[in-house]
């Protein structure tokens, strides 16, 4: 999470200094969702994301150096500089993209899940995970009004595909408030409409996300079918670095923010919440939180 935050902050710095171009969509504030879900996956599991994919790639294990190089268009980037910010792919890590149009990654994720079931049932291949290889599809609240979302919910439940649909509801689709765009803004309730469980979760709390993710992934792995998880989260920056972000009121994020800018402030906030327990629970085996942050800064963002 610390790596994700410092990575994205460095992207912003590079962009505003005129060294990075195009559409860059940052993930600040939503790190708990990525970490909470992806860190539970096995190597054979796949992740499909949207254009806001840097941190998903990092969580999946793509080296920060490769992602950053891709953002600079270098051949050492994970896609040889051919994809860019919105098209991060990594075959060795089963990171299936990086999609620029919203919703178009969900069918691809459904296909990966279909492939997983096919390999298990038709090709009789055993996965090292002990069950089916799971696919996670990440997308936002805006996508939940798109046809592909509903079509894939239907197909995934119909064929009991090993997929988890993760909605990162940050309440805004560029400048369109979720409440202005959606007749029924409660997204997790749309899961049961297709026969699958729908679960809401506080997307700012990595431990709660992890709990829900564990259950959803286990469900998928055992062949019980898909789950729709709605993570209530917030993005601290604009939709993209080119977005003036005029419509969001400054005080809106107070429910979501523990502290605004510095990673160590997050650490402070988190420590206040989970003093002691958090330190031992953290995914890296380091002695202190500051050490984690220092290491992430060094590994991720040095050129």
């Amino acid at each position, binding site marked *: 999470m610390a790596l994700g935050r410092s990575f994205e902050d460095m992207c912003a710095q590079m962009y505003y200094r005129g060294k990075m171009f195009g559409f860059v969509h940052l993930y600040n504030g939503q790190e708990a969702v990525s970490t909470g879900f992806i860190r539970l996956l096995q190597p054979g599991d796949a992740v499909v994301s949207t254009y806001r994919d840097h941190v998903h790639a990092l969580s999946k294990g793509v080296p920060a150096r490769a992602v950053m190089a891709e953002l600079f268009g270098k051949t050492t980037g994970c896609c040889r500089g051919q994809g860019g910010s919105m098209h991060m792919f*990594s075959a060795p890590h089963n990171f299936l993209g990086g999609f620029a149009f919203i919703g178009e990654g969900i*069918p691809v994720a459904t*296909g*990966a899940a279909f492939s997983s079931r096919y390999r298990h049932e*038709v090709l009789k291949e055993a996965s090292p995970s002990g069950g089916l290889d799971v696919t996670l599809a990440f997308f936002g609240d805006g996508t939940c009004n798109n046809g592909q979302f509903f079509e894939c919910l239907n197909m995934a439940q119909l064929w009991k595909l090993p997929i988890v649909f993760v909605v990162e509801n940050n309440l805004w689709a560029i400048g369109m408030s979720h409440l202005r765009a959606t007749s029924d803004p409660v997204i997790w309730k749309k899961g049961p409409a297709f026969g699958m469980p729908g679960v809401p979760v506080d997307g700012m709390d990595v431990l709660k996300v992890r709990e829900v993710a564990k259950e959803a992934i286990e469900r998928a792995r055992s062949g019980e079918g898909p789950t729709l998880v709605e993570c209530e989260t917030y993005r601290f920056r604009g939709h993209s670095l080119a977005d003036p972000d005029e419509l969001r009121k400054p005080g809106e994020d107070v429910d979501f923010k523990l502290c605004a800018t510095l990673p160590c402030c997050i650490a402070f906030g988190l420590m206040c919440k989970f003093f002691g327990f958090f330190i031992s629970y953290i995914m890296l085996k380091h002695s202190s939180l500051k050490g984690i942050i220092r290491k992430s800064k060094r590994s991720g963002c040095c050129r």
Partner: protein
Amino acid sequence: MAAALQTAGTLTASSNLVINSERFRFGSLLRSPAGMKGTILVVKSDGRHTVGFNAGLRGANLIPNAVAAKTEDSAKSTYSKPGHEILLFEALREGLEEEMDRDPRVCVIGEDVGHYGGSYKVTKGLANKYGDLRVLDTPIAENSFTGMGIGAAMTGLRPVVEGMNMGFLLLAFNQISNNCGMLHYTSGGQFTIPIVIRGPGGVGRQLGAEHSQRLESYFQSIPGLQMVACSTPYNSKGLMKAAIRSENPVVLFEHVLLYNLKERIPDEDYICCLEEAEMVRVGEHVTILTYSRMRYHVMQAAKTLVNKGYDPEVVDIRSLKPFDLYTIGNSVKKTHRVLIVEECMRTGGIGASLRAAIIDNFWDYLDAPIMCLSSQDVPTPYAGSLEEQTVVQPAQIVAAVEQLCR
């Protein structure tokens, strides 16, 4: 639907048997002993051309044999063994079945492909043989199940996605353009999309405007996509098999009115090269380039033309993207006159691109402007008499050749 299955009885493939011998005679003169690949001149549609084997395939990560290689001239073997008579839709099924037997990763995805056997019966019986997961009946969600096919192709399967009518794939344009075509590139070569997208298209018998669309003109600009159009039972089976074996995404255009064509095809395994055009009739006076159903209108016109003393050379271009400019170019260099006959609309059709490609590459060999006969730029009317007038008819082809050869 039932009306479409009653295809015109006059469209038989009997004339092909006579032409085949001429085709491979011509072929043996022009092709090097090592096969096509050794001497290919690859001309890209934007006019740039590079010479040499695997021209354009630079970079260690690119797949060298993206297309199944052509086996020995398989037309010869039509005569070495008796073969078997088959209808075009059965030939497609045979090709599909053979590939599904050969590789368990090949699967079919589409509406009514399973229990119903396909709206044109191309997948009849396959679900019983391979099960419901390998021949997947989907809900009516073209964009999503095409995307699903792409996701499956990225993760190791080899899906064949059927559009019940090619026009329905307009709903899948997002997936076909963005993911199918571009993903291999935007992922830096990490993922291949060995998918085949196939289905019936073209103008049928009074099917109405929306069921009579020619999607090859819409798809031709999509980078990364390969397109072929089949026209005989022989090349249908061959192209189906080659498309499935190819590591590239291939769109296979079939025609609603050609499904009941009958032809004798070889018993043994064969494939057709995806980038090759087919020499249908060797001639001297004019090169007629065509594909799919218009091939038969051209051959009908050819009979009239021969009686009038003309000697047209007919080439079924088969490969709509990329064009086989090697075969086409050789023909142009011989006859110096080109007539393109297509079923696409006039504006932005395959003919328009082909014309540009020929002008870019073979301008000096032309003795007359390239003529292009296409369908009218109108929605296809329902009334039979009107529909007939929107599509190129043999009489128009005869008139065009007479004008060209004046």
